[in-house]
Each structure stands twice: as structure tokens, then as C-alpha cells.
């Protein structure tokens, strides 16, 4: 392990703090809005495909969440550790649901 004190960068150091341009943020936002419109459309039009629409809705929602986390929340530019830990948290959450659902599905 390296001496941690050296890895602790100076506050407000522009080298370290990745500044995301305004335009880029706005682009992300447009993307999110498009995804929102898509879910609504899929849901309202895909009436006959109930199961399909749940899954698509969740996939789109997850995509939106990933975009928000990565860009708005700067996760992409943070220490990779946080991304990993986020992954572990999500894994646990999925396991909680999956194991519980497994009980209900196999009854």
C-alpha cells in the first residue's frame, strides 16, 4: 500500500476534479427524457404484451438509473471502489429478491 496521504489530493484541485461541461449534462438529460417517453409508449401501446412490458419497463428504468449514476452522480469519474461497492449492494438486493421469489415460485 502506498502512503495514503500522498493519494489524498488537494481540495479543489482541477486536475483531480473532473468537470463535466454543461452541454454534456444537457445531452444526458435529453437522453433520459427520450427513454422516459419510450417506456410510457411501450406501456400504453404494448397492451397485449403484459409480461414483456414489465421487463422492458425495468430494463429502461435500469438504463436510466445507470446513466444518472454514471454522469449526473459522477460515478464514472470517482474511485472505482465505489462502483464496485455499488455492484455488491445491487447484487445483495437482487439476491434478496431472487431467493424470496424462489420460495414463492417453487411452492
Amino acid at each position, binding site marked *: *500500500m502506498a502512503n495514503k496521504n500522498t493519494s489524498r489530493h488537494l481540495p479543489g484541485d482541477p486536475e483531480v476534479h473532473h468537470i463535466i461541461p454543461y452541454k454534456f449534462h444537457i445531452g444526458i438529460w435529453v437522453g433520459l427524457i427520450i427513454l422516459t417517453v419510450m417506456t410510457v409508449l411501450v406501456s400504453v401501446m404494448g397492451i397485449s404484451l403484459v409480461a414483456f412490458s414489465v421487463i422492458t419497463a425495468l430494463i429502461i428504468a435500469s438504463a436510466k438509473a445507470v446513466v444518472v449514476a454514471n454522469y449526473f452522480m459522477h460515478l464514472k469519474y470517482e474511485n472505482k471502489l465505489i462502483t464496485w461497492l455499488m455492484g455488491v449492494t445491487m447484487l*445483495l438486493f437482487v439476491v434478496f429478491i431472487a*431467493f424470496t421469489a424462489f420460495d414463492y415460485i*417453487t411452492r
Partner: protein
Amino acid sequence: MSEALSQPVNFFQAKKGLFSWIFSTDHKRIGLLYFYAIISFFLVAMALGFLMRLELIAPGETIMDAKTYNQVFTLHGVIMIFLFLIPSVPAFFGNFFLPIMIGTDDVAFPKVNLMSWWLYVLGGIFALLTLVVGDGPADTGWTFYAPYSVKTGTNVTLAVLAAFILGFSSILTGLNFIVTIHRLRAPGMGWFKMPLFSWALYATAWIQLLATPIIGITLLMIVAERVFGVGLFDPALGGDPILYQHLFWIYSHPAVYIMVLPAMGLISEMIPTFAKRTIFGYKAIAYSSLAIAFIGYFVWGHHMFTSGMSGPARVIFSILTFLVAVPSAIKVFNWVATLYKGSIDVKTPLLYSMAFIFQFLIGGLTGLVIGALATDIHLHDTYFVVGHFHYVMFGGAGFAFFGALHYWFPKIWGKMYNERVSKIAFTLMFIGFNFLYFPMLILGIMGMPRRYYDYLEDFTTLNVISTVGSWVLIAGILLMIINLIRSNKTGEVATRNPWGGTTLEWQTPSPPPVHNFDATPVVPEGSPYDHKMNKTG
């Protein structure tokens, strides 16, 4: 006042007055605040345990009626779990020693730390309020199983809110420790140079952080159900009681590792110190803490083998339960191997550690018995389970707590305890403990269900033995407490390193100064337990 003193001001002397304590952000003071609060609750819950044993000394009514008994065991369980064992080691020893052991002067967020203590106190007050308002303390068992917990007229709402608040206190402690360990290790203190106690706290903190929110929201749902009369878990209104059990155990199984992992960390500190040699298998012990924390999330269903869960789910949970036993076994083997070719100094903390290993073995191995499907069907909700968990929680975690109390007594209060008296107290506790709980295992195999106010004649003899055991245990605990209080007044003054320990807390004066150190601590080159490098002591 601020001239350079030869002996720096220790954290007790730094400031005086009640407010300088209850609003302190010094991790040592917060640790001690926790200690006093925790030990008070512990005494209350012990007294309740004692009353339960009195009631159970003979069939029929002895000293209280059925409803009171039910309230007593619920309060006993709630206090012991949420107010004693979950916070005990992390919030007291962890707060006090984690920053010192990794060579820094406080936790990452001192104010948040103080807030956790206040939340703890608030939760404690809620729990105690159930005693005085309305229809008395909850009578549901600490598991608050629906739908009974929705129907009963006792103060379930208040008790559940208490547990909710205590959960947040626990989350904040865990959060603080994780950030502290990541960010504040002393220069040169790499991950594998940390004392094993910090590793244990690190693994625990992740359970506190990621499991506790689930119980929080579940308990809120119980409150909502009681207040609005909606049927989240009550089948009369369309809910499913088994879903409640899933949610409850998703947290509460990992929670049992919140109780025992830090205690295991304590054992990993005490054994090398008194064996005067390095720990055997440092990495194996560190990794097994993480493994227990991780696999521990996936086994909750073993509390529900008879609940009507599906057959395949039972099988999967059973097999995972068995796997989580392996890392515990690895730890036990490494501890015993650490004694090999040591130069062993049998002081009281070592005796507690040995008792821990013996009793944790009984607790853990009985855990295997109830982890198997066939046997758990027979033993679920019998006294065998009660025996199992008192062996791991009290015989394991509790004894480790008392051992560490002796181990760090000189460091915290700056005085030596009376070794001879403490050994007598230990012996009484050890004998009393085993007489109290071993009979419960046999009772369980004979088929006596738990949470029974009254029982059949056949079970009398073993219950009497158990109750008498509780008296011996009382004698031991009281003697221990008296000894420690007296030693604090009249004991010899402790040096920096009375046991010849190798971790950083022994490099600072006893008690430590306000900022923990009076000189930059020297992080040992090799393993944190290298006695050879540290001969000077």
C-alpha cells in the same frame, strides 16, 4: 494550563462536567458513553433472564402470570439483541480502539458518531417507555412475527420503533467505521498490517450498513399495518405472514454475525498477546471474516424450515447454512494453532478466550444440528435453539466482551484489575453458564418448546438444574463487576503496555491522551503481531 506537561492530559481529565461527555465528539468518550449505557441495559435484561429462570423452576405459576412472562422474554430478547449485543463490541470497543489501533486520532465523522450514540439513547428510551405506558411491553417475542404482532394490544408499535431507531444508530456506526478504515489508517498501515480486530469491525460494518435498512423498513411496515389497519402481513386482510418472516430474517440472520464477528476479532487480539507469539494464519482469519459476512447474507431461510416455505427453498438454505460454518471453523483452528509453541501467560483475558472457543464450539456445532433439515424439523422452536443461541451469543460474544473488558481495562481506566478475584469470578461464570444452558440442549431434544410459560412434569429436573446454574452465573457476574469497580479505585497504576501487546494501542499512555498519541506511533514492519520485533514492551 497549557504548558508542556511531562504526562499529557488524558482524555478523562481534558474537560469536566456532564456536558463535556454527552456532547463530546471524542471517540473514546463516546465509546465509554456507550459502555455505560450498554452495561445498564445488560443488567436490566439479565435481571429479566433471572426472573424467567425463577418462573421456570417448577411447572405452573411460580412468580408471575403467563402474559407477564411473555412480556418479560420479549423485553429480555429485545434488550439483549438490539441494546446489548449488537452495539456492545463495535460501539464500545470499536469506537474506543479502532482509531487508536490504526493509528489515527478519531473516526472519520466524529459528529455522526455522537449522533449514533444519541440515537441509541433515544431507542433505549423508547424501549423503556413500553414499560410504563399503555398495556405494557410487547409480548410478541423479539421476532415480532405477524399476525400476532398486529393483533396484540401491548406496546408493539413503540417497541418496534425502538428497534427501528437503534437500527439507524447501528447503520451510522458501521458507515463511520468503513470510511475510517479506508481513509484514516496511519502512514505505513496497509490493509494487511491492520490488527485483526479492525478487519472484524470492517466486515461487521458492511453487515450493519447493508442489512439493517431491510429490518428498518420491515418494522415500519408493521407500524403502518397496526396504525392504518392494512393487511401487509395479516392474511385476514390479504397479506402473507411468511413474507414478513423472510424480511425479518434477511436482516436478523446477518445480525447474528454482527454480534459474533467483532467478538471473534477480540479473540484474535487476546490470544497472540498472551501466547507471546504471532497469530497463526493472519490472512485466513482476515478473509474468513469477510467470507462470513458475505455468505451470511444468503442463509436466512434456515429460521423458516417449518414455516411452509417451499421444499426446494429449504434445501438451498440448508446447504448454504452449512457452508457458512466453514469460515468459522477456519478461525477456530487458527486460534488453537496460535497457542502452539507459544510462551503462554495464563491471565484472565486468556481464560475468557479459551471459554469463548469452548462455548462457541458448542454453540456453533449445535448450529449445525439445527442447520440440517431433518433435525431442525424436530428441534425448531424448542429449547435446543434457546441453548444454541445463548451458547453463541452469551458463551461466545458475551464472554469475549468480558474478556476484552479485562484485557483493555488497564488501557481505558489506567489501573490494573485484581487478577486473583477476576479468576474466581471467571470460574463461577464458566461453571454457572454451562449449568444454565447445557440442560436446555437436552430439554430441546426431549421436545420442550421455547417461549413456554408452563411445561410438563417430565421436564422439571433439567429446568431446576438450569435455574440453579443461573444463580452461580449471577454470583460470578456480580463478583466480576465488583472487582472491576474496586480495581478502578484501588488498583495499581497501569503502564503503557502491561501485557506486552504489539498493536498500536499499547504504544500510547494508559489512559490515552486526548489526541490518542503523545508521539507518532511506530507501525511494525512485519505482521501486526510480531512479538520478536517488540521485545522491549
